[in-house]
């Protein structure tokens, strides 16, 4: 019995060896260069801003509309779009890169990791000057690594404080809080009025890094200090989390914030269980779906006054140079930014534009106005630092512990991760 097993295993191993030697022998490195005139297929991978496959707002539907229009105008270029949800896109793209099957175009949340390995085209190779000139300067600057631009801002969003006007009226609060003291006082009033989560606090894995950053900004802190050094456990940040811990212990927030995702808390806000919560344009559809109408939007309160900045988040589109389709990619990018597509994505998903022209077009939208106003002065994650890619997942997993255990210790561990070489 055992002998047979060994024999089988040996045979299997031999087969593997044969197969793998075949693999390396037949490795043909074909790099199709764009031949003049012939039809070219651009492979594109994009993130899904909608509710997933089959839903009317799915990424597939959106991109099909864009691509159909583009292909009608450019019969020689075909665009194959593969839409992947946000949870999987980074891992799947990493697998593609690892296997040497890079797409021509990638639209996702970060570009910087591809730059060092020289996988990307520079922006001026794939985008016309009139389009890149219209980008918000601050955004475009974040697309640069060592002075050369690689990432093209795709869409953006900003954050503000949403408050439930009915619950505020019930608790006898006239206007949204501006300072942390006011916030705490208001939260106590809401609690007395029977609101189970006076302040919605989502420090769970989904987006703990955003919620934390907004509170850090309120105390003049952040992930890095003014000189660009990591400062996750700065005295300001420790103070911030001590304040939050006080709120949590008094039962004034979402319970166990370190396990709550923003989507859950936004849904609770939509259901009228939460007094106030930090959110963005992308939370508006969730509130609408839950039937909540009477809410207001205000600047996020800080320790001694409302924030004059907010968290800006940008998503990126980039072009890989492996297949050499620069000319075709340029046509597609120019089409995307100058045509109706960029506007359509803002309308469909309540995402904010990244061009001056786009912001002007949207300025009439009452609900989006506070966010549009905040955009030019937004603060960003330190995502250009290569360590951010490693620190960010750690933050998502553990920073919620800072409102439960010792803040200095939890933030100190994160600081250690950031400083480790």
């Amino acid at each position: 019995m055992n002998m047979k097993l060994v024999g089988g295993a040996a045979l299997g191993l031999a087969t593997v060896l044969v197969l793998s030697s075949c693999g390396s022998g037949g490795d043909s490195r074909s790099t199709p260069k764009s031949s003049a005139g012939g039809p070219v297929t651009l492979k594109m991978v994009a993130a899904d801003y909608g509710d997933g496959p089959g839903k009317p707002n799915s990424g597939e539907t959106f991109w099909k509309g864009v691509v159909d229009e583009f292909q009608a105008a450019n019969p020689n270029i075909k665009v194959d779009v593969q839409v992947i949800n946000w949870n999987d896109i980074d891992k799947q793209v990493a697998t593609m890169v690892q296997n040497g099957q890079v797409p021509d175009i990638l639209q996702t949340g970060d570009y910087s990791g591809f730059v060092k390995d020289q996988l990307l085209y520079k922006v001026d190779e794939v985008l016309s000057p009139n389009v890149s000139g219209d980008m918000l300067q601050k955004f475009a600057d974040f697309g640069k690594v060592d002075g050369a631009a690689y990432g093209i801002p795709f869409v953006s969003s900003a954050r503000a404080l949403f408050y439930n006007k009915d619950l505020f009226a019930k608790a006898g609060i006239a206007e949204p809080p501006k300072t942390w003291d006011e916030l705490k006082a208001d939260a106590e009033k809401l609690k007395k009025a029977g609101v189970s989560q006076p302040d919605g606090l989502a420090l769970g894995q989904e987006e703990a890094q955003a919620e934390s950053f907004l509170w850090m900004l309120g105390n003049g802190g952040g992930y890095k200090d003014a000189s660009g050094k990591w400062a996750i456990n700065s005295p300001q940040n420790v103070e911030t989390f001590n304040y939050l811990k006080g709120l949590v212990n008094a039962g004034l927030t979402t319970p166990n914030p370190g396990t709550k995702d923003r989507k859950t808390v936004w849904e609770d806000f939509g259901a009228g269980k939460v007094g106030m919560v930090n959110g963005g344009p992308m939370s508006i559809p969730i509130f609408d779906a839950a039937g909540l109408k009477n809410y207001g939007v205000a600047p996020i309160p800080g320790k001694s006054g409302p924030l004059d900045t907010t968290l800006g988040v940008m998503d990126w589109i980039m072009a890989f140079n492996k297949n050499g389709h620069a000319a075709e990619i340029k046509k597609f990018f120019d089409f995307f930014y100058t045509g109706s597509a960029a506007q359509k994505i803002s309308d469909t998903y309540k995402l904010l534009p990244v061009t001056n022209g786009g912001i002007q077009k949207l300025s009439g939208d009452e609900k989006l106005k506070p966010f549009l106003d905040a955009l030019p002065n937004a603060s960003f994650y330190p995502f250009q630092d290569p360590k951010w890619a490693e620190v960010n997942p750690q933050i998502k997993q553990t920073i919620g512990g800072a409102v439960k255990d010792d803040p200095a210790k939890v933030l100190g561990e994160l600081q250690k991760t950031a400083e480790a070489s």
Partner: protein
Amino acid sequence: MKRLRALEPLAWVGPAVVLIALVVLWPVVEMIRSSFLKISRFGVVQGGNGVANYEKLFGEKDFSDIMLRSVIWVVAVVALTVLISLALAQLFNQRFPGRKVARWALIAPWAASVLMTAIIFKWMLDPEVGVINQIRFKLGLIDAMGGASADQLGDASTAMPWLIFVAVFVSVPFTTYALLAGLATIPGDVYEAAKMDGATRLRTYWSITLPLLRPALTVAALINVMNVFNSFPIIWAMTHGQPGYSTATSTILMFILKGSNIGESAAMSVVNFGMVIILTAIFLKVSRWNKEVA
């Protein structure tokens, strides 16, 4: 000619062997290889990395807690599953009205997707609207909905029992059916003989049923050990391993690491792989020791 005939079986087992090589052995080789490479988060292989991935993994602050928790998780889930399944199999082996329906009903948790089951339990435990909390609220076990006391998944001490409960819930059907099949193979005359000798019911169960059930029991428990150790969806859907890493097992850690360091994640996979082999070996040893006693 004779030699050719000797090779004939190869034609029959060949395809299966190739298949196993492709989908089992090759990934294992790749996994081990990746664990010694430096791979950026974006999938770019940046060359060899020696044992640095392992050093980093073993240096993680939460690593030892997570490994210990993984073992406790496996032992707790498998032990509870087997105990409950032994009782259920015995029950379902009796003749009683509605047995057919009851047997069918037991399949439900097995037939449903594990991820779906986990998500449904997460909803039932929702602090604001979850039905389990509404019942606890009506019974006066908690003072209010939405507070920390209604949020059992928010704290490791209350979340772990729920995670184990759900894992047992989805493992029991398979185990019960495996044991039920085992019970069906025990011939009736053995029991008759025991009865003739005046053995008590407990004695009959201990000295006849259990030893004769041993093959089925071993297989069922072994499959459970491997399944539960690699179990990902229950914990991921219900807690993401949070707060912090306090409900994470090594499989969860492997997945989280994949987002920041693929090489380290591969190292975790290799350690996992080794753990499964060790757990299996220990288990087989223990169950053989049982045989000598019986």
